[in-house]
C-alpha cells in the first residue's frame, strides 16, 4: 500500500483521475473481498439468529433480517421434544470422537514413522497403497465390511465406528509422513548409538519432534469423525446409539414445516462444537491443510 501512495505522489502533475484510480486500487480488493465474503457468512448468520427467533416469524413474509424479538423458546422446546434425544446423541458423539481421535493419531503415527524414518525394500510400493486406499471409493469395500461387523456381532453397537480407527487412517498417515520426512535421520541415529531401540526412538525422539503435526492430525481426526454421516447411517440401527449428525437427519425427516424453528435450532447445536474447535485450533487446521499438499 505504501508503495502505491509513494508512486502517486511522485507523479509531477497529479490529476484527479489519477487520485481516483489509486484509491480504487487500494480499496478495490477490499470491496471485492467483502462482496465475496457475504455469501459465506450469511448462512451462518441466518442459522445463528434463527435459533432465537419466534418460530412463527420464520416462515413469514416480509422476512425478518434481524430478529424483532429474541426468545429462548426454541432451545427449551428442543430439549423437551420427544425424539430429539440430543443429550444422548451428544454423549455418543463425544465418545466416538474421542476414541477415534486418540486411536487414529497413535496408530497412524506408527505407520508414518515406518514410511518416513525407516528404509526398507518395498516401502514406496506400500506407500502407494496408502494413496490408493485414499482414492478408493468407500462403496467397493462397504458390503464385506458390513458383513464382517455383522459376523462379529458389532451391528447395533458403536464398534463399527470406533474400532477400525485402531488400524490407522490413510489421510492421517499421509499427513504425518509428510511432516516426519522433514525430521533429519541423524536425530534417530544419535539415539541409536546411545543404545536406544527403534521403539524408543519413535516414542522419545520422533513423536516429540512431530508434536505439532500430531496436534494437526488429532484435530483433523476429530473433525472428520464428528462430521461423518455415512458410516453412522449404515451401521447404527439402534436409536440409542445415534450420533448428532444422524440424529439431526432423523429429526428433519420426522418433523415438518411447523417445527422449522426446532430443526434449525437442532442444526445450530450440531454445528456449534466444530465452530468452537475451529476458534481454538484455527492455526493448526490451516497449517495442517498446507502440510497435506504434496510437492
Amino acid at each position, binding site marked *: 500500500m505504501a508503495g502505491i501512495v509513494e508512486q502517486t505522489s511522485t507523479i509531477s502533475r497529479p490529476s484527479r483521475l489519477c487520485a481516483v484510480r489509486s484509491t480504487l486500487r487500494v480499496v478495490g480488493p477490499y470491496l471485492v473481498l467483502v462482496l465475496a465474503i457475504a455469501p459465506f457468512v450469511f448462512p451462518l448468520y441466518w442459522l445463528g439468529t434463527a435459533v432465537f427467533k419466534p418460530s412463527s416469524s420464520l416462515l413469514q413474509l416480509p422476512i425478518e433480517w434481524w430478529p424483532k424479538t429474541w426468545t429462548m423458546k426454541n432451545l427449551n422446546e428442543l430439549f423437551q421434544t420427544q425424539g430429539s434425544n440430543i443429550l444422548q446423541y451428544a454423549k455418543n458423539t463425544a465418545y466416538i470422537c474421542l476414541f477415534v481421535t486418540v486411536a487414529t493419531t497413535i496408530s497412524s503415527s506408527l505407520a508414518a514413522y515406518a514410511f518416513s524414518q525407516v528404509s526398507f525394500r518395498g516401502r514406496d510400493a506400500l506407500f502407494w497403497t496408502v494413496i490408493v486406499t485414499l482414492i478408493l471409493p468407500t*462403496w467397493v469395500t462397504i458390503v464385506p465390511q458390513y458383513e464382517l461387523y455383522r459376523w462379529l456381532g458389532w451391528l447395533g453397537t458403536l464398534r463399527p465406528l470406533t474400532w477400525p480407527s485402531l488400524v490407522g487412517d490413510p489421510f492421517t498417515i499421509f499427513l504425518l509422513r509428510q511432516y516426519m520426512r522433514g525430521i533429519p535421520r541423524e536425530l534417530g541415529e544419535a539415539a541409536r548409538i546411545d543404545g536406544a531401540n527403534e521403539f524408543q526412538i519413535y516414542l522419545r525422539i520422533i513423536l516429540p519432534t512431530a508434536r505439532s503435526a500430531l496436534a494437526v492430525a488429532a484435530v483433523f481426526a476429530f473433525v472428520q469423525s464428528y462430521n461423518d454421516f455415512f458410516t453412522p447411517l449404515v451401521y447404527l440401527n439402534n436409536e440409542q446409539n445415534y450420533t448428532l449428525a444422524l440424529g439431526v437427519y432423523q429429526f428433519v425427516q420426522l418433523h415438518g414445516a411447523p417445527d422449522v424453528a426446532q430443526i434449525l435450532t437442532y442444526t445450530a447445536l450440531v454445528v456449534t462444537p466444530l465452530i468452537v474447535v475451529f476458534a481454538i485450533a484455527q492455526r493448526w487446521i490451516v497449517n495442517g491443510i498446507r502440510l497435506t499438499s504434496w510437492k
Partner: protein
Amino acid sequence: MTVERRPLSSRPFSRNDAGVSRKTGRRRSVIARRNLRTGLLFLTPWLTGVLVLQLYPIVATFAYSFTDYNGLTFPPHWVGFKNFSQAFASEDFWTAVRNTLWWTVISVPVGLAVALALASLLNRKLRWGGLFRTLLYLPSMVPFIGAGIVFAWLFNPVGGPVNVILGFFHLPQPGWFISPGSAKPGLLFISLWEIGPTMIIFLAGLQSIPAELYEAAAIDGAKTWRRFLNITVPMLSPTLFFNLILGMIGAFSFFAQVLGASAAANNTGSQTGSMHLGDPNNSTLLYAVYVYQQMFQNFSFGYGAALSVMLTLVVALFAAILFRSARRWVFYYGEEH
C-alpha cells in the same frame, strides 16, 4: 506461520532417499534385513487394516458383483454379468450416471476457479487478511449434513432469504431443492460454500512462488495476465493437480449434503409424503446416492457390488489419466526431469 518450508525438490516419491549408507555388502544386508523387520513391525496395524478392511473386501465385492447376493442367503447364486446388464437396462442407473457426470464436470472446475480466485485475493497481503481467511474458511467446518439442511431453508422458495433477495432484484426465483431443474445448482452452492480447504491449499501454493519471478517479469514488461499465465499457472501446477485429485474424490463421494438438503426441502410443507432418495424427481440421484439406495435400502448387495465395481473402474481410469497427464503439465520448480 510455523509451516515447515521444505525444499521444493522433496517430492513424495523421490528415488534417492530409500538407499542405505555405503558400507560393505554383508553389513548392508544385515542392516537392510533389520530395517525391513522394523518397518513391517511398525506397519503391522496398518497392514492388518489394509488386508482385512480393504483388500479382502475389494476381492469379495468383485465376487459379489457376479451374484444375486441379498445379504441373507449364503452362498449366493452365480449370475454372471446379469447385474451389469440389469444396470445398463435401468433408467435410474443412467439418470445417476448423467447426474454424476453433470456434477463432476461442473462442480470440480467451478470449485477450483472460485477457490483460486479467493486465494489470489487473500494473497494480496491485505490488512485484516487473517480475518477474511477465517470467515471464508469457517463454513467448511459445518458438518455436511448440517450444510444440507441450512441450505434447504435458505433456498426455500416460500420465504427463504435467497429467493427474497432474487425477487428484490427482479430476478427469476427457482424452486431450488424442490424443483428438478434447479436442485443440482442448489447443491453446487453448498459445495462452493465449503470450498475452504481447496482455497487454503491454493493460497499455500501461491505463497510458495518466489517473488523474484514476478519481479523479473515486471522488469521485462509482462502484463498481469501474461504473468498469471506464464508464472502463476506453471508454478501452481502441482497444487492444481493435487486439488484436482481431491476435487474428483470429493465429487464422487458427495453424499451427506444431498440427503440433508432433500430431506429438509421435502419437509418445508411444499411437498407431501415421505422423502425418497434423489428427490425431487431423481434430479439429485447422484451415483453415490443410487448405490446407497440399492445396497442399504433394497439390500441388493450383488447389484450394489456391480455398481461399485463400475464406479471403482471409472475412478481408476480418471486417476490414471490424471497421473499420466500430470507428466506433461505439472511442473516442479527447481527439479530436473
